[in-house]
């Protein structure tokens, strides 16, 4: 769908998964539900000035439901009449809409997108598309992947959903803990996306979605320590969103942030979830990451160094769940504990993607501290070439200029 206006865009995005979940809950197939929903949104946009609709979501849902029934009728034109009469009886009734009661309807869309029968590499795409209501073009911009690839993968996943008979149902209470793992992993991928790019409108609305999901999952699985761990991590990272950039969008490291810019209520919420999680004594990746954030917050708030604890946590994280991010975290922690020489050695022992900007930025900082101006400048320049947003580019340019001076 083309971009119409920021308000309408937000309305569409915030309502999409809720409404899609409602249609799926009524038993309409995914493809019909999505087509009907987009058409209903389009009609709403065209007619809204004449309509004076008190409840836009209820209006859109009503129209979409009728469209779904039409599609089912067209397909079943040979089917006996009584099969469709049941759905058509309430055809003209207006839908009621109680947003608070719809958490399950929305969640079922995410459980569908992160169903273990779907390729994990596609789950994130699908969550963004059917869960967050982003178009293929928007998903491809966000993930920096060609639109054609994104589109093919989504089509493949939707075909699997249809042909393998994957239904959009919330898992039964005794199965939810076994099923929540893939959803948590996919939400974590969304969290990284919402964090690692500058604060555009898209990022903020995605961050809101991640926050809602993490909270809903922690409430759905209160005895799953990793669900609580992810909720904690989301709260702790989100609490510093505002502080992480200056008003002109320049990135601020934790040490340079103002604590008064932090959201202390979110920090308290994150700490509470982490405490609950630790009571289960089953440490996992999300709890470890949340613990690192928690220690760094405490360090800054009290002014007392906890560098050895951070190093220990990163060592554990990288040993058990190695990623490019955990590696860089470990290198940074080594830097603070053991100095730049050892950290640079640790950094160099790995050779992952040479396209990974944070790698080059960290390398440059280490080299600069060691007085290696020429390699530092080269590393900053590589990072600069990889930077895709202005705030990052400005920051890196300033570092290069500093080395030139």
């Amino acid at each position: 769908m083309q971009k119409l206006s920021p308000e309408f865009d937000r309305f569409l995005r915030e309502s999409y998964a809720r409404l899609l979940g409602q249609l799926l809950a009524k038993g309409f197939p995914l493809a019909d539900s999505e087509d009907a929903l987009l058409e209903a949104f389009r009609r709403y946009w065209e007619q809204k000035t004449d309509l004076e609709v008190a409840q836009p979501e209820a209006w859109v849902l009503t129209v979409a439901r009728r469209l779904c029934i039409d599609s089912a009728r067209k397909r079943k034109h040979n089917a006996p009449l009584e099969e469709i009469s049941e759905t058509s009886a309430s055809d003209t009734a207006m839908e009621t809409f109680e947003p608070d009661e719809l958490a399950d309807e929305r969640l079922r869309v995410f459980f569908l997108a992160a169903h273990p029968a779907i390729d994990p590499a596609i789950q994130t795409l699908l969550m963004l598309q059917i869960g967050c209501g982003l178009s293929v073009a928007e998903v491809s911009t966000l993930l920096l992947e060609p639109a054609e690839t994104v589109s093919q993968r989504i089509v493949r996943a939707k075909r699997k959903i249809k042909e393998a008979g994957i239904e959009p149902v919330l898992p039964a209470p005794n199965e939810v803990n076994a099923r929540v793992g893939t959803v948590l992993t996919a939400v974590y991928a969304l969290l990284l996306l919402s964090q690692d790019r500058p604060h555009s409108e898209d990022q903020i609305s995605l961050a809101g979605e991640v926050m809602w999901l993490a909270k809903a999952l922690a409430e759905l699985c209160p005895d799953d320590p990793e669900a609580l761990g992810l909720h904690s991590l989301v709260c702790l990272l989100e609490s510093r969103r505002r502080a992480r950039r200056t008003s002109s969008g320049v990135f601020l490291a934790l040490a340079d942030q103002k604590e008064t810019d932090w959201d202390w209520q979110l920090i308290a919420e994150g700490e509470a979830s982490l405490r609950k999680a630790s009571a289960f004594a089953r440490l996992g990746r999300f709890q470890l990451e949340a613990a690192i954030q928690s220690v760094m917050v405490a360090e800054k708030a009290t002014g007392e160094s906890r560098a050895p604890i951070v190093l220990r946590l990163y060592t554990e994280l990288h040993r058990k769940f190695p990623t490019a991010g955990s590696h860089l975290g470990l290198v940074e922690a080594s830097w603070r504990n053991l100095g730049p020489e050892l950290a640079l050695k640790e950094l160099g022992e790995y050779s992952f993607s040479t396209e990974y900007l944070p790698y080059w930025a960290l390398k440059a900082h280490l080299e600069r501290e060691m007085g290696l101006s020429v390699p530092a400048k080269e590393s900053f320049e590589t990072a600069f070439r990889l930077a895709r947003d202005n705030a990052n580019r400005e920051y890196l340019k300033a570092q290069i200029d500093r080395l030139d001076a």
Partner: protein
Amino acid sequence: MKYALIFAETQEELAKRNSQDAPAYWGAWGAYIDLLDNEGALVRGSGAGLTGPETATTVRSTESGLAIQDGPLAAIKEQLGGFVVIDVPNLDAALRLAQEAPCAKPGAGAVEVRPVLPDPES
């Protein structure tokens, strides 16, 4: 919706058929088929247990003509041991029943769950 549950068993698991573990092995499969039937999921007469892979012969046409070869389809760690067709509401239900199969136990093999093509008559 109809799904085929395709049972793949490791060499060790298949070897139980000709060992002192045979009664327990066949007992577990009998109990499993009863479970599928009691759940109302089993499509009766749809499936079969298969004799061991050493009894298989593979037929394939190649560019140089017909090739008839001793042995099963692919020499992998797990071998096809049998299959059934079940009729259940959705994939989740099929996956739940697949987990109960004797060859879904650790080290015993795996179960592939695949939708059956619709009947061309309907």
